[in-house]
C-alpha cells in the first residue's frame, strides 16, 4: 500500500491483469504505457509484454480500427483493453453500439465481450476549446444496450475499477478525466483488487442534502464541501463511480433521509446522465426536491474567462445548495 502516481496505479492494474491473462491485449494510439513509481520502479508494458500484445510504438490515428480490432479480439474470447486519447472523438461509438454491446444478445449468448474502452476525457479547461474540452460522453455510452460505464474519480477507484472492468465479460467504457488526477489521492494497494462495478460510495455523510457528482465535478464538489460545512449545511456526498449499472439502493437510502438532491456535472445539460439520476430517484422517492447544475449546452470556449463562468464550480455549488435548502 503506497502513495503512487495516478498513471502508475492504472498501469499497475493493467500489468497485473496482463500477467494473469496471458492472452490479454492492450491497444493505444500514442500514449505509451510507461510509468514510474515514486521509488523509481519503471513499469514498461511494451517491454514486458511485447509489441504484439501492446501497440509497440503506437498505432495509426484511427480510433475505429483500434476499437474495432479490440472488439474482435474480445469476441474471439480474449480480454482486450483499448485506450483512446483525450480528444473526445467518438469515432468508436458506432462499433461499440452495434457490435460490442449487441453481440451477446444477437448471438443468443454465444459471444462474450471482455472488452474495455479506456477513454481519455477532455476537461473544462481554458485554451483548448471545442473538441478538446468535452466532458460527459458517459451520457452517450450509458444509453447503449449491453454497455456498462464507469467514471473513477481517484487513484484507488481508477485501479480497482479498471481491474473489475477487465475481469467483466461485458463491454465496459472507462472514463479517464485528467482533472481528477491531481490533488490528494488515497493510498493504492500494490496487489490487484477490484472496485466492484455498480457500487457507489458515500464520500461524506450528512442529513440535509444529497449531493451527487462523479469524475471531474467531484473536484469542484470537494472544494465546496468545507464551505458548506462552515455554513452548517450537512451534505451527504455520493460518488456513484459506476453509472451503469447505477447503485440505486445507495442513492435511494440517502435521499429518503435528506429529501433533497443536487446533481453537479460537467457534462452538457440536456440529457446528461444527471437527468437520469434525478429521474431514477424521483420515481422511487416522490416528493423530494431535486436539482441539477451542469455545463450549458455549448462547446467549451477557449477563453479562460468564459470557461470559468460556464463551469459549475464551487461558488455555484454552494449557492445551489443554499437555495435548495431554502426552497
Amino acid at each position, binding site marked *: 500500500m503506497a502513495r503512487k502516481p495516478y498513471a502508475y496505479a492504472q498501469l499497475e492494474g493493467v500489468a497485473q491483469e496482463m500477467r494473469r491473462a496471458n492472452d490479454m491485449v492492450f491497444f493505444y494510439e500514442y500514449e505509451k504505457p510507461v510509468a514510474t513509481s515514486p521509488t523509481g520502479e519503471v513499469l514498461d508494458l511494451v517491454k514486458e509484454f511485447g509489441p504484439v500484445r501492446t501497440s509497440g510504438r503506437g498505432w495509426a490515428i484511427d480510433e475505429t480500427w483500434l476499437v474495432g480490432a479490440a472488439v474482435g479480439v474480445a469476441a474471439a474470447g480474449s480480454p482486450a483493453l483499448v485506450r483512446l486519447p483525450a480528444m473526445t472523438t467518438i469515432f468508436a461509438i458506432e462499433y461499440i453500439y452495434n457490435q460490442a454491446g449487441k453481440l451477446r444478445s444477437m448471438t*443468443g449468448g454465444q*459471444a462474450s465481450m471482455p472488452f474495455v474502452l479506456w477513454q481519455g476525457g477532455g476537461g473544462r479547461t481554458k485554451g483548448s476549446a471545442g473538441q478538446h474540452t468535452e466532458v460527459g460522453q458517459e451520457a452517450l455510452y450509458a444509453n447503449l444496450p449491453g454497455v456498462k460505464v464507469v467514471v473513477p474519480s481517484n487513484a484507488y477507484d481508477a485501479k480497482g475499477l479498471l481491474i473489475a472492468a477487465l475481469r467483466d465479460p461485458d463491454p465496459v467504457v472507462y472514463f479517464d478525466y485528467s482533472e481528477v488526477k491531481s490533488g490528494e489521492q488515497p493510498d493504492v494497494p500494490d496487489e490487484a483488487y477490484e472496485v466492484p462495478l455498480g457500487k457507489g460510495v458515500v464520500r461524506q455523510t450528512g442529513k440535509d442534502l444529497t449531493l451527487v457528482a462523479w469524475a471531474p465535478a467531484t473536484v469542484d464538489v470537494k472544494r465546496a464541501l468545507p464551505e458548506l460545512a462552515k455554513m452548517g449545511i450537512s451534505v451527504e456526498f455520493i460518488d456513484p463511480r459506476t453509472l451503469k449499472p447505477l447503485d440505486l439502493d445507495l442513492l435511494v437510502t440517502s435521499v429518503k433521509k435528506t429529501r433533497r438532491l443536487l446533481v453537479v456535472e460537467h457534462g452538457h445539460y440536456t440529457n446528461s446522465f444527471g437527468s437520469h439520476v434525478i429521474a431514477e430517484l424521483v420515481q422511487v422517492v416522490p416528493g423530494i426536491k431535486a436539482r441539477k447544475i451542469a455545463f450549458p449546452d455549448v462547446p467549451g470556449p477557449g477563453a479562460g474567462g468564459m470557461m470559468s463562468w460556464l463551469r459549475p464550480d464551487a461558488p455555484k455549488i454552494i449557492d445551489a445548495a443554499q437555495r435548495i435548502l431554502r426552497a
Partner: protein
Amino acid sequence: MSTQRIDRRTLIGIMGSAGASSVVFSSCGNANAGLTGARWEKSISLATSGPGGNRDWQPGDALKFLPPEKIPTSGKASDILAALTKEKLSLIYERMNASRKWENAMKDLFVAGKDGLYGSFHTYIGEEAIACGVMAALNDDDYIASTHRGHGHLIAKGGDLNKMAAEIFFKETGYNKGYGGSMHITDMAKGIMGMNGIVGASFYLAAGAAIRAQVRGTKQVGVAFFGDGAAASPYYFSAIRSCTNHKIPVIFVNENNFQYMGVPMASVVPTKYISEYTRGLDIPHHLVDGNDVAAVYAATKEAVEWARAGKGPSMIEGITYRWYDHSGFAGGRVGADGAMGLPYRSDEEVRQWMSRDPISRYKAWLLEKGLVTAAELGRIEAASQSAVDASINFARQSKDPDPAQGVHNTHAGGPVAATQFYNRSGIGAS
C-alpha cells in the same frame, strides 16, 4: 511490360483457349510489380473494363461479365483443386448442395407463407463457390466473419442445418435461441463469428480474431467476407491498411455481385474492380471467377499460406451474381429458380448467370476429371436434401422462446430490469 486492354469476356476467352487458370489476376510483391501477376503462371494484366466506373450502367450489363460455361479442367487452379482427396472434394460438393437446397427450401417456405415465417432473409444462392472454395482452404479452427448474406458461409464451414433452420423460425433451439434470426446466425464454437446486420462489420471482427491468433501463436487465420457495397465502408480501408502494417493474418474476401440492393456497383465504385482500392498496398490481390470453386480455392490456399507464414493479409475478389432479390423473394416462385421481373436488372441477365451455376460447373468438372462418379454425386445430393428436410421438421417441432427471456442474454451476469412495466423490483417501491 506491355499493357493489355481487354474486356473481361475476351480475357476469359483468351484464358480458356490457352487452358488458363481461372484466376485471372493476381498481384503480389513490391509496388513496382504493378499489375502483372507475379505469382500465377497464367495471370493476365487487369482488364480495363471491369464493372466499376460505368456511370451509364444499364440493367443487363452484368451479361458482359459472364464467366465461361465450364470451369477449366486444366491450369493451375484446376490442378490445385484436383490435388485434394476424394473425401474433401465430396465434402465441398456436399456443402454446396446443402447450402443451395437449404436456402431453396427456406425460400419455398417463405413464398408459400404457411409457416408464418417473418424477418429478413438474404439468399446466397448463386454465390456458393466462394464460401465453399474459401472454406475448403481453411482449418476448422480458423475464424470467419460473415455478412447479412451469410447462410452459405455457415454451411460451408460446417454449420448445423437444424440449428440454422430453428433460428429462421425464431425457436429456442436455434443457433441464437431466437434472438437473432437469419441475419445473425453464429457458431462461435466453429469459429463462425456470425452474420451481421451492419455492412462492413466483418473486417474488424476477423482482424481481432487474427490478432488473438498472433498473440496465442496458433497460426489461425481470420477471413472477412464482404460485398462490393461493403467495400465503401470506412472500416474497410482502415482494416486492410492496419493488417498490412502489422502483418495480421486476415483474408479479405470480396463477393462482387455487381450490386448493393438495387444500386449498380458501377455507379458507386470509381475503379473497375474492388481490388483496385488497395492496389497501392503491398499485399497479394487475387481477382477470380467467383463461380469457379477451383479458382476460389486456389487463391485462398495461397492467401492462407501467406498468412500462416506471417506475411500478413491478402485480398481476394470473386466476381459472382445473386439469383434473388436483395432480401426476401420478390420475383421468386416455389419450386423455380431465380427471381424474375426485378426492376433493376434484366431477366436475361439472371438467366445467363444461372446458366453459370457454380454447383453444376463444379459437378461437370468433377465428372470430366473423373474424380467422383455420377452415382456418388447423386447420393450426396440426396443426402443433402434429407438433411435439409430434417432441419425443417426440427425447426417446426421446436418451441418458441419464453417471452420473458427478452431481458436475458444481454449481459453475462443475469437479466436487466424489465423497465417496460410500471412495477418492477428496484423502482417505484415506495
